[in-house]
Structure formats: C-alpha cells, structure tokens
C-alpha cells in the first residue's frame, strides 16, 4: 500500500454526543480539577493579606486581611462564584470517591450508575447549601 489516510481525531470532542458515562466522568473530573488547583493558587494569594497584619488594626477589624475578605464577601458575584466552587469541589470529591473504588476494583459494573449518583448528589448538596452561601448578601 502506497499511502494511507489519516482521519485525524475523528472520535474526539466533535463526537461528544456519543460519549458515554465513563468519558463524561473523566472530562468533568479533569475540568473540576483544573478549577480547584487554579483556585488554590488564588486562595493563597488572597490569604497573603494576613502577612504583616497590624495587631492594633486587627483588634478593631480594620486590618487589611479582615477588610479584604469581608470586602470580597460583600460582593454578590463572589457569593455566586463560591457556590460554583462548592459545586466543583463536591463533584470532585464524590467522583473521586467513585474513582478510588474503581482503583480498588470495586463496583466496576456500576461505574455509570455511580457517576450519575455523584451528579445528583452534587446537585442536591449545592441546592441545599444555597441559603448558607447567599445569607446576608441578598
């Protein structure tokens, strides 16, 4: 055979409608993982305002750390981002537990059902946390 034809990534994301549970679980686990590690860096950056706080200011809650954090919490958008973060974290935890079981060779024949279960549980936990997260901001 002189040549052969390379169709490239014929089965890649263009075929997302055909993806099955295990594939979606992988995609979402990656995505939520990227968000969480990105947040970790941001989180430490924000908390860095605690370095060199003036003890006198801290006593009356007018130090940079307290003011930065409370200022951010006062923004509605931050509250919504926190809800997003909670959703992402909860899904990553639940699907992570699913993956640990898969690594142990347990429940491999219910891997799709356990993925759907982690999605539903994530939704339930997020919804029930809404009042706590939005409290005082609305």
């Amino acid at each position, binding site marked *: 055979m002189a040549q052969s034809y390379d169709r490239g990534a014929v089965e890649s994301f263009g075929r997302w409608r055909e993806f099955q549970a295990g*594939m979606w679980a992988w995609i979402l686990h990656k995505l939520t993982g990227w968000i969480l590690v990105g947040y970790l860096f941001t989180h430490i950056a924000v908390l860095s305002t605690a370095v060199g706080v003036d003890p006198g200011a801290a006593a009356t809650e007018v130090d940079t750390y307290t003011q930065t954090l409370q200022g951010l919490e006062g923004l509605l958008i931050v509250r919504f981002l926190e809800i997003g973060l909670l959703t992402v974290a909860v899904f990553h935890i639940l699907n992570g537990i699913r993956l640990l079981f*898969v*690594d142990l060779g347990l429940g*491999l024949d219910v891997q799709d059902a356990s993925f759907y279960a982690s999605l539903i549980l994530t939704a339930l936990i997020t919804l029930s946390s809404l009042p706590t997260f939005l409290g005082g901001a609305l």
Partner: protein
Amino acid sequence: MSTQLEQETEIEEEPTESRESVAERLSEKRREQIQEDLDTAEKTIQLKVFRYDPEIEGKMEPRFDSFTVPFHKGMTVLDALIYARDRYDSSLTFRHSCRQAVCGSDALFVNGQQRLGCKTQLGDLEHPIRIEPLPHQDVVKDLVVDMQHFYDQMEAVEPYFDPDELPEGELEEQRQTPENREKVKLSTRCIWCGACMSSCNIAAGDNEYLGPAAINKAYRFAMDEREGTDRKKERLRIVEQEHGVWRCQTQFSCTEVCPKDIPLTEHIQALKRESIKNNLKFW
C-alpha cells in the same frame, strides 16, 4: 506483489463515470435484480459507507456512498456490507473471515461506536446506518485500517505462555487450578480485533501507550500461576513502564465496546494494584 497490485488497479479504473449515485453505473440486469430483492424484502435499510482509495483517481478524496439493502430478520452489519459489495460495487473493501465473532477481522465504527460487523444486528441500530473504518488508525482503503501498530503493541507484552518448568513426559498436560483458570478466563477471550484500542482516548493521544488489548494480554499471563514469579515480575515491568498501565484513565470506553465482553478496565486496574504491591514489597 507489485504486479498483482497493478492488475487490480487497472480493473478498478474501468468505471470512470461520476460516483454520485452508485446505482447509476450498474447494468440493467443487475439493477432489476436489486429491485427485485428490495421489493420482496420485508424492509429496506440504507447504509452510508465510508469510501477511500488512494490508488484510484477520483476515489482519493474520502466520501460516503449510500447503499440500499434488503433487510431480513437476523441480518448483521457484515451481511449488509457483503450484499452491498456483491450487488452494487465489487470494489467495496472490508476485512471479514469467520462471520461468527472469532477471527476478529471486522471491527468497524458503526453509528459512532466500535462494533464487530458480524455480531451487530441491523435491527438494533438507528437508520441510516453509518459505517466507517476504526478511528485512530490510518485507513488503507475503504473500511480497512492499518493494524500494524496494534499488533506491535500486542507483541510488546510478549503474549505467549512461558512457564518455568514443563511437566514430565512430553505429552503431559500443563495443569492449572480451576480458581486460577477462572481468574484469567475472560482475558483469554481476546480476538485481537482492535475495537478497544480504537475507542481509547488515551491511546489516541499517546501512540506509545500499550492500550487495553495488550495490557489485557499481559494480565492473562501475569496472573497465570503456572508461570514462575520471576517471569511475573518481568511481565509487570513491561506494563508498569511510563506508557503502560498508568496511562489508563478509567474512562471505560474499551470495556463498553469490547465485542467479547472482556472487563478490560478491571484487568488494567488489577495490574496497577499488582504493580504497586510488588513495588511496596521491599523486604
């Protein structure tokens, strides 16, 4: 070999008309025959088949041909392809041999999933049926892909039985306990069709990844107690290399498509654990 190839080329170059409609170039007699088949069939089914031939002018550009085939109960995708080849276009190329899911020749991409043509019932599929060669492998012609890389990966895990000692007496059996046989039973079913490798998202991105079929082969021998412990360690060393088991992301794609229902993901995971156990045991 080369002269044979040239001959084929000459024969296939004969139909030079437009390829818009396959039926148009058929002889009157053949067309009547097909019409009769279609009229007497309980139902007809449309196939959309991937076509490509780098050696023929006018077929170098990949495209889809439509074939309408008569349907009868129990018909498989392979039966439909054979009908299309025999009645419409004798140049339609696909691999097949045993027609009973043993030889592993006819793994195809049917309606967006890797399936064995001879094991897939037409009645179970949505219409029209879209038939393509296996993804992530180079297409040689029509539905035929280059399987060399897949075979190389299979060879890489040294897929042959290699016990330390042979039983006394040349014709003596090499006995295995029923429990151990049970453990490797499903892994021995592999027919080297390549469906799993084609479905694997990681194998698609990393050409060096051993892939599900090869790892399953490694499992089949590594778990066989008749082989010695040193041989097992060597086998584990092959699969625990960088492009071995660790690449598996447990997407379960291979397990979903395996026509022999081998729990591929489970076997890959078992080898990961076996390897970790083996490496943690430093005493």
